C-alpha cells in the first residue's frame, strides 16, 4: 500500500529509523575530511577521529598506530551498530537487514576459496574477511575442492544456498571459475534482494529498486570492462548480468558485444543517468570510473534519507559507512606513506 506507510510504519520501524538517522548524523562531514587530509601522522588522525563518533573505539589504541588498526576499529563500530539494529529489528526489517550482509558473505566465500587455492593460511584469510559477511562454518570452505563440494559441505547451511543453483559444476576451482561464481552469486543475490524489496512494496520498493538497479548496472559495466580480452564468451558474459536495472535488456545486449572501453562508453552514454558519469572521463580511461561510480552512488544513497517510512535508509546508511571506511583507509594509507598529494584521488565526500 504505497502512501499509507506513515500510518503503520512507526509501530515496528520507527525506533530503528530514528536510530539509523541518528547514526547518519555521525557520518564525517567535508570539514572533517578536510581536517583529516591535513594530518601529518596517523596519530593526528587518531586525535581528530577521537572527537568524532569513532572516539571510543580508537581511544585505547597504543600510540604507534597502523592503517589496519584504524580500519579495523572503524569497521568494528559499523558492525556493532549493525548488530544492535539487527537485534532490535522485527520482521520484515530483520530479513532486510540480513540481505544487506549477503554481499559481504559472497565476497568472503570468494576470498577464502581463492586464498586456499593459493595455499594461504586459513586464519590469515579469516582475519581479512569482512566481519559483516561472517557465518559459522566459513573456515570450513577451505576443505572444498570443487563447486559441488563447496555447496554440499558448507554453503547449504548459509543463506547463499539458493543462489548456488546456477553454478553447481563438478569442475575444479580455479581463478576464472571463482570469479564467474562470484558474479553468478552476485547476480542471483541482487535479483533476490530486488524481488524481496518489490514484495515489501511502498516507498521501500521504490527507493531500493533505484539503488539496486544502479548497483546491478555498475556491476554489468565492471564485468564487461574486466572481461574484455579474457576467454569469456559473449553468451557467458551476458549470463552474468542481472535481469533488472536500467540497462536491462537492451543495454545488456550492447554491453555483451563490447570489445574495448570506448564501446562500453558508447553503449552507456545512451542512458542519461550514466551519461554524466562517462562525460567526466576522458576517452580510453577506466581508472577514474570507479570513483565516478562511487560518487554517483553516494549521491543516490544520500537521497534515500530524504524520504521517511522506508527501509532504504538502512541500506543507504550501511553503504555510506562502508564508503566512509574506504575513505578513511585511503587517507590513512596516504598519510602513512607520505603520499598526501594523492589523498584526493579516491576520497568520496559524503556530505
Amino acid at each position: 500500500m504505497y502512501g499509507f506507510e506513515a500510518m503503520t510504519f512507526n509501530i515496528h520501524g520507527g525506533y530503528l529509523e530514528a536510530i539509523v538517522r541518528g547514526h547518519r548524523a555521525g557520518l564525517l562531514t567535508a570539514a572533517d575530511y578536510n581536517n583529516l587530509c591535513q594530518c601529518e601522522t596517523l596519530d593526528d588522525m587518531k586525535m581528530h577521529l577521537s572527537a568524532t563518533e569513532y572516539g571510543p573505539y580508537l581511544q585505547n589504541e597504543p600510540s604507534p598506530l597502523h592503517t589496519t588498526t584504524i580500519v579495523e576499529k572503524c569497521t568494528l563500530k559499523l558492525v556493532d551498530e549493525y548488530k544492535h539494529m539487527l537485534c532490535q529489528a522485527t520482521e520484515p526489517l530483520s530479513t532486510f537487514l540480513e540481505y544487506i550482509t549477503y554481499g559481504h558473505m559472497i565476497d568472503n566465500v570468494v576470498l577464502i576459496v581463492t586464498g586456499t587455492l593459493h595455499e594461504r593460511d586459513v586464519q590469515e584469510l579469516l582475519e581479512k574477511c569482512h566481519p559483516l559477511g561472517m557465518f559459522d562454518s566459513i573456515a570450513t570452505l577451505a576443505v572444498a575442492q570443487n563447486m559441488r563440494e563447496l555447496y554440499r559441505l558448507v554453503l547449504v547451511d548459509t543463506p547463499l544456498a539458493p543462489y548456488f543453483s546456477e553454478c553447481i559444476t563438478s569442475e575444479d576451482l580455479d581463478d576464472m571459475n571463482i570469479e564467474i561464481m562470484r558474479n553468478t552469486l552476485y547476480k542471483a543475490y541482487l535479483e533476490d534482494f530486488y524481488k524481496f524489496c518489490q514484495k515489501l512494496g511502498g516507498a521501500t520498493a521504490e527507493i531500493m529498486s533505484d539503488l539496486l538497479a544502479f548497483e546491478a548496472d555498475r556491476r554489468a559495466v565492471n564485468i564487461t570492462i574486466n572481461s574484455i580480452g579474457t576467454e569469456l564468451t559473449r553468451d557467458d558474459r551476458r549470463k552474468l548480468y542481472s535481469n533488472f536495472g536500467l540497462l536491462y535488456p537492451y543495454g545488456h545486449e550492447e554491453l555483451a558485444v563490447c570489445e574495448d572501453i570506448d564501446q562500453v562508453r558508447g553503449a552507456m552514454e545512451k542512458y542519461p543517468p550514466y551519461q554524466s558519469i562517462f562525460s567526466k572521463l576522458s576517452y580510453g580511461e577506466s581508472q577514474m570510473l570507479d570513483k565516478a561510480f562511487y560518487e554517483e552512488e553516494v549521491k543516490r544513497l544520500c537521497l534515500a534519507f530524504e524520504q521517511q517510512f522506508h527501509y532504504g535508509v538502512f541500506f543507504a546508511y550501511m553503504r555510506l559507512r562502508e564508503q566512509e571506511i574506504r575513505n578513511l583507509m585511503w587517507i590513512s594509507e596516504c598519510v602513512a606513506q607520505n603520499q598526501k598529494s594523492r589523498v584526493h584521488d579516491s576520497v568520496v565526500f559524503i556530505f
Partner: protein
Amino acid sequence: MEKFIDNLSPMDLMRSEKMSLVQLIIPVESAHRAVSYLGELGLLQFRDLNAEKSPFQRTFVNQVKRCGEMSRKLRFFKDQIIKAGLLSSIHPVVEPDVELEELEMQLAEHEHELIEMNSNSEKLRQTYNELLEFKMVLIKAGSFLVSNNNQAVAEEWELSENVYSSDRYVEASSLLEQQMRTADQSGLRFISGIIFQSKALRFERMLFRATRGNMLFNQAPAGEEIMDPLSAEMVKKTVFVVFFSGEQARTKILKICEAFGANCYPVPDDFSKQRQITREILSRLSELETTLDAGIRHQNKALTSIGYHLTQWMSMVRREKAVYDTLNMLNFDVTKKCLVGEGWCPVFAKAKVQEALQRATFDSNSQVGSIFHVMDAVESPPTYFRTNHFTNAYQEIVDAYGIARYQEANPAVYTVVTFPFLFAVMFGDWGHGICLLLGALVLIARESRLSTQKLGSFMEMLFGGRYVLLLMSLFSIYCGLIYNEFFSVPFHIFGGSAYKCRDATCSDAHSAGLIKFRDPYPFGVDPSWRGSRSELPFLNSLKMKMSILLGVAQMNLGIILSYFNARFFRSSLDIRYQFVPQMIFLNSLFGYLSLLIIIKWCIGSQADLYHVMIYMFLSPTDDLGENELFWGQRPLQIVLLLLALVAVPWMLFPKPFILKKLHSERFQGRNYGMLVSSEFDPDVEPDSAREHHEEFNFSEVFVHQMIHSIEFVLGAVSNTASYLRLWALSLAHSELSTVFYEKVLLLAWGYDNVVIRLTGLAVFAFATAFILLMMETLSAFLHALRLHWVEFQNKFYHGDGYKFKPFSFALITEDDD
C-alpha cells in the same frame, strides 16, 4: 521613592556578578605555571582564540597527545587492576607531585613490565590449557576406545556364548592391541581432540557431510571448564573421537578440525603408554600450576603498587591535559615570546587573578612579569551567581528554564521562599510534612558523607535538592496546620472547636448542623468542619480564593521585577509603555477581584463574586443589587474597566513607534548604510568580543510587541486561572489521603482480626509512602515548577544569557578524559 530604591544595599543573588573581559599576556616560560595556578583558583573563563584551528594545528598539540597517551596507559592499568580484582583493597596514598616527564617514564616502564608479564602468563596459560586438554582427551577418548573395543569384543563373546567377564579394563587392554590390529587391517583409523561444546553439533554435521557418512563420531563433555584465552572466561568443551577410513578422509577431517578450532591430540593405542603419558602430563601440569600461581602473585604485587598511585596519577594527568587544552586557546603575540589570552573574570576576582599571575612569574623565575589588563567588551558577559549550598538548588531550578541575562533580576531570590510555599499549598498535611522533613534531615545530616560518594541519578537529584526538600517540608507542616490535616485527621491543637451540637445526643449534627458558641478557632481550619456536609464547599471556597490571592500577588511581584529590570538597564520606555499599562491591566481586573475577596472575608457578605466579575464586563452600568459589597462599587467598576481597556493599546502601540523615531533620529542625515567590512574598524581584532550594530526592522519590532501584548492580556486571564491548580492539587491530596485513611485503615481496623488489621495497616503505609509521599510530592513539585517558570517568570525574565564556566581543576570530572 527613587532615592530609597537606589539606596537599597545590593543583594548578592539579585544580580549576577559584574564581569570584565581581561587580557593576559604571559611570557612563554611561565605560561604553564600561570595557567595551572589559574586553574587552582578557578575564576577565569578563557575564550578560545584559536577556534578556527583544528585540534592538531594548535601549539601544544604534542603535550595534549602525550597526556592522552598517558591516560590511555592509566586506563590500561585500571583495567588490569579491576581484572585482577584488586580495586577494593587499595587505599590511595598522597605523595608530592612528580614531574610530568618523570611520570611519563614511569608509566611507560610499568606498562612495559605489565605487558611482558601478561604475555608470559599467557604463554604459560596456553601450555597449561593444552596439557589440560590433552589430559582430558586421554581420559575420555581412552575410555571410548576401551568401551568400543569392549562392545565389539562382547559381540564376539556373545557369539561364542562366553560369559561377560568382570574385570573389564584388564580384558579390554589385553584385547585392545588385537582390536587395533584388525582396525588397521580394515584401514579404520581415528582422530581424537577437543572442541568447544557450542560448536560440537555443527562439527559433527560437517564431518558427516564431508565423509558422506562414513565415519563414527563419539563425544563426551570434558570434565573441567577451560579458560578461553581470548575472553578470559571459563568455557565448556567436548572431547571427541572420530573413526574413519582412508587417507583422503583424514586430510579432510584434519582441515575441518582446523576450521572449527578443534585441537587434535594423538592418543596412543597402547593402554600402558596412555597411562604413562597421563602420568607425565599430570606432573607437568602441577609444575605449571605453581609457576602460574607465582606469576599471578608477582603480577598482583606489581598492580597493587601501581594501584597506590593510580588515583593521584590520573588526576594529575587530567589536570595537565586541562592546562594544555587551555594553553591551546591562547595566541602567540608577534614576537612569539608571549602568549596572549582573553577571558572573562568576575570583578571581585581580579586581584586574585593578578596575584596568581605574579606568583607564577615569581615561581618560574621569569624575568618578565605577566601583563593583566581589562578590555572593553561589546559581547554580553557570562552570568555568574555566587551561590552556597542552600541557594544552589534554587538557582538550579531557575537555570533549568534558562540562564539569566547578564545582570538581570534573578527570580531565584524569590524562588527560595515562593517555591516551597506554593508546593506546600498543594501538599498541606503536617503528617506528610513531618515524613518529608525527616527525609530531608537525614539527607542533610549525612551531607558530608553523601557529597563525596557517587550516587545514582535519582539519589543524586534528591540529594541535590535536599534544602529545597527541607523548606518544602517545613512549609507543608505550616500549611497542614492551617488546613488542620494530619494524614487527613483533624486535631484540636489550638484549643477547642468553636462549634457544638444542638443537643447532648448530637443526633442531628449531620442534618441540621452545629451551632457556634464561642470565638473562632484561633489558627487554621476548625476541626469540626471535618466530615460535615458543608466541608467541601467551605474548603473549596477557601482554597480557591486563596489560590487567586497568591497568584495575583506573585504575578504582581513579577511585573514589579520588570520595573526593576527596566530601571537597572535605564530603559524608561519599558517603564512607561510596558510596566505601567501591565500593572494597570492586571490590577484593574484581577487586583480588583482580590480586593473583593478580601472585603467579602472581612465583612462576611453573601455576595456572589462570579456574578460581580461577569456582569462587570457584560453590563457595567446595571445595578449590583444584593451583590454590592461597598459604597461606590459601580462607578469604581466602570473606571477600572475603562482603565483596562485603555491599557491594551497603551502597551501595544507607543513603544514600537517611539523606537522607530529614536532610530531614525540617530541616523538622521545618514542616508547611506554603514559599510560592513573589516576595513571600517581597524581595531577589531578577529575573534575579539566585539560585534556589529544591528539593523532596525520596524515590522519585526511591531510584530514582536504585538505578540508580547496579546500574550500578556490573554495571559492575565489564563495565568490567574492557572493558579487554581493550587486549589485542585490540594483538594486531590486531601481527598486521596482521606480515602486511604477511611477506606483502608479504618475499614481494616473495624474487624477484630489481627491479620486483616495488619494487612490494612500495610496497605495504608504503602499507599502513604508511594502514592502520597512520592507521587504527590512529585506532582506538586512539577506544578510549583510550572507556576514559577510560566506564570511568574514570563512577566520579566528573559533567560537568554550564558553561564560562566571558569577554567577550574575542581570542575574537571572523571568522565572528561
